[in-house]
């Protein structure tokens, strides 16, 4: 058995439990729809033992899979009652994700086998002079990741006390302000009641209220109540 483990090692450390399982299934040349669960579980556990003995760091995912395998193995040992023939083969719990993962692997191989730009074919490196007219500094592509990356780099350069917590709550208030400003830019004014849709939940109502407060604080709006009707109206300043 130690020979076999050595052989496994030669094939490299597995990226995850799925990789290891697929390796074992192929090595034993077994049918994925009829996995000899006891055999595969044994070999899987031995590999984990080996990784432990070699002090190889491995993710907890390997242990989760070990537990799953053991569980399936014990389920298989339970006697099947005749009236329960409709019950699923416990191994399906393994087969389905394995098939899906194998599909992903094949798709990855297919992608890697395509003609790759920068490897098999090339495009022109754009000459700066073609763009010199714009007079701008380094030009970058616009993408959400570029935006947040730019912001992250800025944050790294400023002191902690200047940091603003960018929790979802704060962004939600900003978002609400943006919506109200959109409305005000269109209409100039809006009644307080119109700000709250009839199906608004408590959270949304609080959010809108916070947004209105913030806007008053920034003197972006003026709030006026009609003497007779009592209707409260927001005016964009």
């Amino acid at each position, binding site marked *: 058995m130690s020979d076999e483990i050595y052989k496994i090692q030669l094939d490299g450390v597995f990226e995850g439990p799925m990789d290891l399982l697929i390796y074992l299934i192929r090595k034993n040349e077994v049918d994925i729809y009829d996995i000899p669960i006891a055999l595969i579980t044994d070999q899987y556990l031995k590999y984990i033992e080996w990784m432990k003995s070699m002090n190889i760091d491995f993710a907890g995912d390997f242990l989760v899979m070990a537990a799953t395998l053991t569980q399936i193995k014990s389920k298989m040992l339970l006697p099947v009652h005749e009236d329960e023939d409709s019950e699923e083969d416990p191994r399906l719990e393994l087969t389905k994700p394995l098939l899906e993962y194998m599909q992903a692997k094949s798709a990855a191989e297919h992608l890697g086998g395509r003609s790759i730009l920068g490897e098999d074919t090339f495009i022109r490196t*754009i000459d700066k002079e073609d763009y010199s007219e714009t007079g701008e500094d380094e030009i970058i592509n616009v993408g959400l990741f570029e935006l947040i990356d730019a912001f992250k780099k800025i944050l790294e350069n400023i002191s902690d006390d200047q940091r603003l917590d960018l929790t979802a709550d704060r962004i939600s208030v900003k978002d609400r302000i943006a919506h109200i400003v959109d409305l005000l830019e269109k209409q100039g004014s809006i009644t307080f009641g119109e700000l709250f849709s009839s199906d608004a939940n408590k959270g949304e109502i609080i959010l809108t209220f916070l947004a209105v407060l913030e806007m008053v604080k920034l003197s972006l709006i003026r709030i006026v109540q009609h003497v007779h009707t009592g209707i409260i109206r927001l005016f964009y300043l």
Partner: protein
Amino acid sequence: MMENIKNIIEALLFVSGSSLTIDRIKSVLALNNTKEIRDALSALSDEYEARKGGFYLHEVAGGYQIRTRPEYTKWIKHLIRIKPLRISKAAMETLAIIAYKQPIIRSDIEHIRGVDCGGILRTLLERKLIRILGRKEIPGRPLIYATTRQFLELFDLKDLKDLPTTEEIEKLGNTADATDA
């Protein structure tokens, strides 16, 4: 002034890094219809084919791009010794899952791969092969990922429909042999 649409388009294709869509060309030239543009592109392509020079007109990522002919790849590699964009197997798997299952959230990717994918997602984002599409309206509002135009260009795909189905890939031959574990 516009008599020379073909030359203008050729110049545009020359300076544009990414592939140019017909719509894009249309808006640059301020034209109303695409017929002239299509004709010019096809004339250019024919011309490049007839002269069989160092490059050709390639249809990719929903647009057009001038690319070098593969037979000169060897020489270009002598010229530019930059390390090509190598993508690890793990990253390729993650990318494949996103390509086929997009829009997809991180936990679904990790469910399929069975391992954490955070670092790989970050790298793919940095390389602009994937992008954040928004958030899924489920508890936790997780970010949704999808592939980009650069992804299509890198793998020479006209559009996402150009990807073979997983059934087609399986038919291409059982790629699953024991050596690649």
